[in-house]
């Protein structure tokens, strides 16, 4: 512990993405420079808002242990995503992270729910006697748990001319794959839209580099992540697709249980040592087809998530990230744009 003031920052690992609201406290602080802890992505790993970075959690250097606690809230019309996560960094070499995600789906206000029913243009999937389209299904929740492991392979975001490179895995378990959401039986929303599995494992490699004398002589961070995944909407809509599950066949979804290579990227510029602005993107597999709007045939895919963000690091214990995020298409809604707020505590 120390009474030193942590003045300005150098580097930055910072920032990123989707919105969040969280909490955390901190006591002893490690010796890395301000903002080199990054923030925490929605899957619990240290990174930007929606992508994991090569950075290891906390401000610890080679001889210390550090970590972070994060809460994030993303809200778009009819959907809300809340994430609580924690990560521990060991000797700036390994990171263990956990996250619990809750996606709130306001089916009651989705006027397009009729797409499933018998009205003109409907899919006729929900018969009268079952759950009629006129019945308000209310708020539904899909929750998911994520366990992540990350290892720094080589490099240092600040001090080596080449990027810091890390490899990681994420095991994800969707808890509502079989939850009875409609009265139709043990078919949860992920399975209903044709997901093949309730769990999956992502593999990724991330390269992060901080340029101290970057754009406009400002500290500039660039990250690229390559991910192998089967996840639909990060796993909130399950993993892979099976044409025999739910309404997949009716929507034209084909069975696909193979890994997809997807690219993710982040860039951030530190306007001040404690304030960064930037943007991110994250590609996603497009196996799953969704009903969108009121057309039974208008079908979307998860598409690419994007965000622009501003992050503030008042000290080494705390960071606050606000973002405007585009989650890509989700069931019933082609466009899902909204705000992301995240509070990150680092120790």
């Amino acid at each position, binding site marked *: 512990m*120390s009474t030193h003031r942590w*003045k300005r920052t150098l580097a930055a690992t910072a920032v990123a993405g989707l919105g969040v609201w969280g909490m955390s406290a901190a006591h002893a602080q490690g010796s890395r420079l301000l903002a080199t802890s990054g923030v925490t992505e929605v899957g619990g790993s240290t990174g930007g808002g929606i992508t994991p970075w090569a950075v290891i959690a906390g401000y610890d250097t080679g001889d210390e242990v550090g970590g972070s606690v994060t809460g994030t809230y993303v809200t778009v019309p009819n959907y809300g995503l809340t994430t609580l996560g924690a990560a521990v960094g060991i000797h700036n070499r390994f990171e263990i992270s956990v996250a619990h995600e809750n996606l709130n789906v306001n089916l009651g206000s989705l006027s397009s729910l009729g797409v499933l029913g018998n009205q003109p243009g409907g899919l006729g999937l929900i018969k009268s006697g079952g759950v009629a389209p006129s019945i308000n299904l209310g708020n539904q929740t899909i929750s998911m748990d994520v366990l992540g492991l990350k290892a720094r392979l080589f490099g240092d975001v600040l001090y080596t001319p080449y990027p810091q490179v890390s490899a990681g895995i994420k095991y994800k378990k969707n808890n509502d794959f079989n939850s009875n959401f409609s009265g139709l039986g043990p078919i949860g929303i992920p399975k209903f839209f044709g997901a093949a599995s309730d769990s999956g494992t992502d593999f990724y490699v991330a390269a992060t580099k901080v340029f101290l*004398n970057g754009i406009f002589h400002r500290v500039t961070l660039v990250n690229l992540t390559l991910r192998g995944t089967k996840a639909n909407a990060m796993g909130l809509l399950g993993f892979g697709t099976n044409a025999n599950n739910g309404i997949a066949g009716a929507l034209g979804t084909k069975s696909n249980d193979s890994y997809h290579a997807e690219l993710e990227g982040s860039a951030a510029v530190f306007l001040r040592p404690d304030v960064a602005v930037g943007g991110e993107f994250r590609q996603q597999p497009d196996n799953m087809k969704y009903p969108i709007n009121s057309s039974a045939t208008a079908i979307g895919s998860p598409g690419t998530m994007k965000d622009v963000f501003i992050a503030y690091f008042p000290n080494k214990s705390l960071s606050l990230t606000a973002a405007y995020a585009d989650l890509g298409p989700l069931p019933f809604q082609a466009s899902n744009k909204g705000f992301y707020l995240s509070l990150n505590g680092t120790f």
Partner: protein
Amino acid sequence: MKLQSLPLARHLGGVALTCALAFPALAHAQMTSGQTLYEQLGGKPAITKVVHDMIVNVAADNRINHFFAKTNIPHLQMELVNQVCEATGGPCKYTGLNMRQAHKGMNLRTADFNALVEDLQKSMDSNNVPLGLQNQLLAILAPMEPHVDHQ
């Protein structure tokens, strides 16, 4: 004696010798401003003030001040000023040891280097060095870290 006691200081000085990586940044600064970074920083008087205040900060910094307990401070300041002066394109010549030699056997950690960087930033802030110039100087010094720590 000085070699053992000057390590961090000598590192800063060794920048010019050890960091070819620094020079693209330097060249960039020259292209955009027409002035060397040395000139933009205010020349030798301004660099001397920043280095002096950094040393004052280090002396009060319990994380790393013990490394300098036996240091000849005036000599340290002279070496550092010459090192920064030369590295930023000024008319000086650093004549100390290179960074690896200067820190051999000290078992410095990345944490120690980061503490020194913070003390330097603090000095540049208190001397109102514009952020863009701070970042250019730090970009020149940062590549020394692998040559300073864990020697």
